């Protein structure tokens, strides 16, 4: 597809903007299939392939959790600076995005709570160290104890309580920062676990 010549553009000009329409260069990859039921459903095929990968998810999740712990250890050693803070955020943010896919939704929610602290605390040096440490430990506990039958409820409850403490802290320290308050109180667009 990408090797073909670009299609000509239709440009309509107005006083403060142009509307540019390009004949759909990808139209040729669309094909009609008969009926509503497609025996070769690509989404089903992909879901099966994803399920086939799931044997690796526990290992991947442990790698992500260890990366988070290492990022936290660097902060304990060197304090918050641009580099250590960015790595902690990236590690937490990756868990927030990936953990639910790997089957650990509570770890994702806990990492989300940690991301919110990093994003919205006005001064990270003044965040109670235990608040951050408990998030790191919670992710590790969820990842390593998740196979126990009773751990699903415990993980969910642990995550809910941590989020409550983190939110209370963020609401307090941002009481004079309305733009942060709005973001803190806005509902996430990601479905919960």
């Amino acid at each position: 597809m990408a090797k073909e010549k670009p299609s000509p553009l239709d440009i309509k000009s107005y006083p403060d903007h142009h509307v540019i329409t390009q004949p759909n260069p990808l139209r040729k990859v669309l094909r009609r299939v008969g009926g509503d039921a497609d025996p070769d459903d690509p989404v089903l095929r992909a879901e099966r392939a994803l399920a086939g990968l799931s044997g690796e998810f526990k290992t991947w999740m442990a790698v992500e959790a260890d990366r988070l712990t290492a990022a936290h250890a660097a902060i304990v050693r060197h304090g918050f600076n641009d580099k250590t803070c960015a790595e902690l955020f990236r590690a937490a943010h990756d868990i927030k995005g990936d953990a639910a896919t790997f089957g650990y939704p509570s770890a994702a929610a806990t990492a989300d709570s940690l991301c919110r602290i990093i994003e919205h605390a006005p001064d990270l040096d003044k965040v109670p160290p235990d608040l951050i440490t408990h998030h790191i430990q919670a992710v590790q506990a969820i990842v390593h104890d998740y196979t126990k039958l009773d751990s699903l409820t415990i993980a969910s409850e642990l995550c809910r309580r941590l989020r409550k403490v983190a939110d209370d802290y963020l609401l307090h320290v941002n009481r004079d920062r309305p733009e942060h308050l709005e973001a803190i109180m806005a509902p996430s667009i990601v479905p919960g676990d």
Partner: protein
Amino acid sequence: MYRIDFNKLRFLLCDDNPHMRRILRTLLHSFGAREAYEAEDGATALEMYTHYVPDIVITDWSMPIFDGLELTQMIRQPESKGNPYAPIIMLTGHSEKRRVTVARDAGVTEFLAKPISAKGLYQRILNVVANPRPFIKTKTYFGPDRRRNTNAAYMGPERRVGGLAEILQQPSLLDKARSPI
């Protein structure tokens, strides 16, 4: 019902997390894609974008060197020699309304909040293939039309001057990101 011949499409995947790249690759190959190039940072992605001329870009937001937002802004340069019109799907753990708006204003075509699902990814790809939006160029913006709802009565400061812009009836990026698929 329409299906996509994925084997005719060329993808560029950009995510610094190797696990997420593996998942994306698995999903795209299962859909039938054969050409999926991978980059782990924004700078490499931009280089690969120029070299491979992909049909569709799927990018994370947070990445080293420069991020997915900056990558989008660099691709959406109307005077550039490369293709500034390629659909860009932002796949990210950022899930706040403010982020969706920022991504939209950078020129992102579709927004998909993690956790990723096969259905969510497929529908975003189907949408950019089957329903491309016209591009809008103003002094401050170049990218897919951000207006998906008609409001003829709107008289605010962002009203476009002179004529009716082409508007497609589609759910907003935010609504789609919120959908549980």
